[in-house]
Every structure is written in C-alpha cells, then in structure tokens.
C-alpha cells in the first residue's frame, strides 16, 4: 500500500466528474423530473375536473330529455284537441251547408210546383173556356158573354 502522486490525479478526476454532474447531469434531470411532477399533478386535476363536468353534463342531458318529453306530450295533446276541434267545426259547417242546399232545393221545388200549378190553372181555364166555348157557341153569343168569361178566367 503505497500512497503517491496518483492521489492528486484521482482528486482531479473526482473534481472533474463532480463538476460534470453538477453542471450537466443533475440540473436538467432535476428540471425534467420536477416538470413531470407538475405535469402529472395538472393531468390528474384535469381528469378530476373532466369527471365532474361529465357528471354535470349527464345531469343536464337528463333534464333536457325530460323537458323535451314533457313538451312533446303537451304538443301531442294540443294537436289532438285541435284535431277534435277541426273535426267539430267541419261537421258544423257541413251540416250548415247541407241545410242550405236542402233549403235551396226545397225552395226550388216549391217554385217549380207553383209554376206547374200556374200552368195547370191556365191550361184548365183554357180547357174550361174552350169547352165552354164549344158549348156556348152553340147556345150563346160569345161577345155577349165576354165580360163574364174574363171574370171567370181571373177567378181561376
């Protein structure tokens, strides 16, 4: 075991390697590891936040769904009511129209009947006059009884 100048050389090597580690190895690694720690902490916090937000979103979605359901049920009920109403209205209108048509037809029929009656009356009186004429031609002077015949015609 002989101690010699190697000691000095080794001390220089040792110092050099401490310097390298202190300057080029430790600081970048320490920084990288510290940064990663922050990154991981941030990531975990973000994940927690995301989870919370997702829960909120699920709740909101459920609310929206329920609201939509209620609204649609409302709409359907309203539509049914409206349809009923429209059917009722249509029924009323149809009845009114039918009544009108029936009334018009009745009036027309009455008119036709009246006209037919008139025509018949004229025909009957003509026929009566013609018959009477035929009878009277033989017995009376037409001109002498003209007043009476006209009066009769008017009565008919």
């Amino acid at each position, binding site marked *: 075991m002989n101690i010699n100048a*190697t000691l000095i050389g080794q001390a220089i*090597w040792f110092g050099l*390697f401490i310097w390298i580690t202190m300057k080029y*190895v430790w600081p970048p690694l320490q920084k990288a590891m510290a940064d990663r720690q922050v990154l991981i902490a941030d990531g975990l916090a973000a994940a927690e936040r995301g989870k919370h937000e997702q829960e909120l979103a699920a709740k909101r979605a459920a609310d929206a769904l329920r609201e939509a359901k209620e609204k649609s049920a409302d709409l359907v009920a309203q539509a049914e009511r409206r349809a009923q109403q429209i059917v009722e209205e249509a029924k009323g209108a149809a009845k009114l129209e039918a009544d009108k048509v029936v009334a018009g037809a009745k009036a027309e029929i009455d008119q036709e009947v009246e006209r037919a009656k008139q025509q018949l009356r004229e025909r009957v009186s003509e026929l009566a006059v013609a018959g009477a004429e035929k009878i009277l031609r033989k017995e009376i002077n037409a001109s002498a009884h003209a007043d009476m015949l006209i009066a009769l015609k008017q009565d008919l």
Partner: protein
Amino acid sequence: MSAEGTLTTTGYIQHHLTNLAVCADSAKIDGVCSGFWTVHLDTLLVSGVLGLVVFGLMALLAGKATSGVPAGGQNFVEMVVGLVDQQVRDTFHGKSALVTPLAITIFVWVFVMNAMDLIPVDFLPTAIQVATGDSHLPFKFVPTTDPNLTFAMSITVFFIALFMGLKVKGFGHFMHEVFAVPFGLKLAPVNFLFRVVEEIARPISLSLRLFGNMYAGEMVFILIALLGLYQLPLALPWALFHILIITLQAFVFMMLTIVYMSMAAESH
C-alpha cells in the same frame, strides 16, 4: 495465465496486485518507482476513461431529457439519480446545490469502477500485454483496489464537508463548535483533540472500507483463477455474490458522504 510455464503462484498473485507505476528516472530506487512522485497509470487511466464514458453518457442523456414520458436511457438515468436524490432528501436537510450531484458522482463512479471486478481477472491484463508486446507489464483494472483512489475521494469529501461547515455555520460558530463541543469552553484542548480525531477517522474509515472490500474481493478472484479448470464452477457464484458487494460498497460510500455533509451543515 502467462504463456511461460515457469510462473509461480506467488509471482502470479503479486503480478496481479501490482500497479503500472510510472515515475521519473531520478525517482527510481533500484530501478523501481517507489517515491511519492510516482503515478499509477492504470488507476488513473481506467478510472478516468470509465468516468468520462459514464458521466459523458449521463450528461448526453440528461441534455436530451424531456418532462414527457421518459424512454430508455433517460428512464434508467432518472431511476439511478432519483434513488440517490431520495437518499439525499431523507438524510440531508440543509439546502445545497452540491450534495446531490456529489452523491450521484460517488455512487455512479464507484459502482462502475467496482464493476470492473466482474471481468475475469486475466482478460484485460492479457489483452494489454498482447497489445503492448510486454508480457510482464502489470495492469490493474479495478481502480478501487488502489488506496490512492479511495483516499483521494475520501479526502476530497473531507474538504468539501469542512468548507460546507464553514460556509453554513460561519467561521465563529464553526470554531465555537470545534473548541466548545461537547465539554464546554473550559476543556477546549480536549474538545479540539476529540474533534480532530473524529474528523481524521472519517476519511480514513471511508476510504479503507471501500479499498479493503474491493481488494479482498479481487484477491478471491485471483485465488479462484489459480485453480485451473476448477475455477469454472467457483468464479460464477463468487461473481454473483460480488455484485452485491460492488453495489453495497458504492451505496455505503455515497450514504456516508451524505451523512458527513449533513453533520457538517447541521449544528450539534
């Protein structure tokens, strides 16, 4: 083993425990370098190259580090660095930009140097001998079996702890601690003596622990290598067991350094 059949067991062991010493011709005694101004070229080269490769690689990976999902090399480096950093956080409660890098350097460097022990004892020395053409060239490939290295590290740690104590506590407080703790100012010389013994014992125990463990481990590998064919069933179990020692010694050196730093930075 060497190709020469005349090599004795003692010679083989000695050859494996000799460092490649280099010195000026004027410093040689009987043709052997033995003065202080001698340099163990193998220790310096292996530890330096290992350190440059490992810390260069770590610096490269750290430079490309992202805060995203770490992949491959970055993940591995972060794992090691994170482990060391956790130990520092648990033990050292002061604020210092130096302690964690120091602990990382010690753990990684000592670990890779110890790990050289797992390469079979004759592989690399023989390769060097073939490459240089000198079949007697000694070359130790485990730098931590050289006390020069372990003492260099522990003495550096000692000085860093000393300066940290001075910086954190201030000169007055530091001196008060040296002379007045634990027996009060009346027994200042005794306190000072206690303190000196304590401070000197630390780097010695720190370096000798690592050196002793690795030297003994290397010795067992050399002895196993002497058994010829029988080394095959023995070298593997010892290598597996040695992985534990390699890691443990690197960890202990790092841990004690952190403890010394925290003792220096905190008041008694």
